[in-house]
């Protein structure tokens, strides 16, 4: 019992070391909050791509903090410096923590060397959203893309990250693919580091 002026260690630090997910919240709480964010953002933008940008910006903030938290907790403070390492960290650790499962797939783009894709058949943020017809190509997965971008950027892998809906056979809903295009310097660095 240290003699501290304030009552608690600090609200900021309190939960950082608890590695198991503590008192989980109902999926409804998140769904409602997220839909408010989408609606609020909509009042401040004039077109669909701005809306996606805005959602991605919100996600970005989440990503930056998630990286801090997970690196500290699950990687003993060690950060990844290789592309494959950070990608599998995203696909496994980050996804598991955010959405309760690993992402469905992680692939390398076939056309370009600097492109990678993370796909999810039932992305949490898209589960409760039906896109009106006049906003056809809106994908609220932009929020998840923002998270990915935030994680990558603050881990030292600047990249352009976008979310796309991909219709696939045998599924009622399109899967969400998050396309990651790394900045040239990232690829260069990775090549220098060799195998």
């Amino acid at each position: 019992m240290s003699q501290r002026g304030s009552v608690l260690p600090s609200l900021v630090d309190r939960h950082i070391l608890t590695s198991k997910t503590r008192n989980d919240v109902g999926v409804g709480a998140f769904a409602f909050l997220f839909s408010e964010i989408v609606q609020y953002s909509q009042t401040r933008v004039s077109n669909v791509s701005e809306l996606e940008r805005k959602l991605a910006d919100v996600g970005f903030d989440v990503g930056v903090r998630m990286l801090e938290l997970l690196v500290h907790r699950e990687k003993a403070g060690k950060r990844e410096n290789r592309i494959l390492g950070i990608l599998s960290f995203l696909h496994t650790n980050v996804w598991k923590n955010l959405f309760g499962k690993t992402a469905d797939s992680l692939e390398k783009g076939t056309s370009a060397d600097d492109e990678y894709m993370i796909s999810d058949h039932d992305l949490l943020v898209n589960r409760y959203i039906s896109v009106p017809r006049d906003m056809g190509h809106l994908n609220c997965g932009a929020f998840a893309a923002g998270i990915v971008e935030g994680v990558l950027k603050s881990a030292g892998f600047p990249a352009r990250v976008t979310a796309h809906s991909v219709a696939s056979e045998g599924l009622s809903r399109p899967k969400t693919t998050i396309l990651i295009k790394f900045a040239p310097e990232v690829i260069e660095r990775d090549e220098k580091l060799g195998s």
Partner: protein
Amino acid sequence: MSSKGKVASSVAGERINSELFTLTYGALVRHLLLDLESPEEVNKQLDRMGQNIGVRLVDDFLAKTNTTRCRNFKEAVKTIADTGFKMFLGIDAKVTQIGDKECKMVLNDNPLIDFVELPEKLEPLSYCNLLCGVIRGALEQVSMKVEVLISKDPLKGDERFELHMKLLEYINEEYPFADD
């Protein structure tokens, strides 16, 4: 278009990691602070968003729990504390000092404020104002007009998180008179 069955599989009890929720809320507050001029404006916006949530959340709540109609303020407050907070935020809340028209509610743990520290210049910001709006909006749907305020807030140095709720009036459903 044909298979709607999949949607139904998300059962009432599905839970997600509170950190996604917490960080998302934090990101929202940050963006509101950037978008709007003053912390006071942010408070208002959070409250408004909370109310929108509350109005819809109450449907979700009533559909997934066996709550029957709450006859009065006391019952409603108890339901919120015992079931509502548990279901949505996964936390226990205790009602203290309950009266016919007023009560205080203590939240043992508030996931909204994990990892949060308020800088001094944001003193006027009521970080969890969304909660007040949610409760107000939800109770409005069951014919109760209430006022909800945060009376104790760990972000401002208090020991625990406490809400102060006050019943203003029961809304008459049959004759919706216009507000003054």
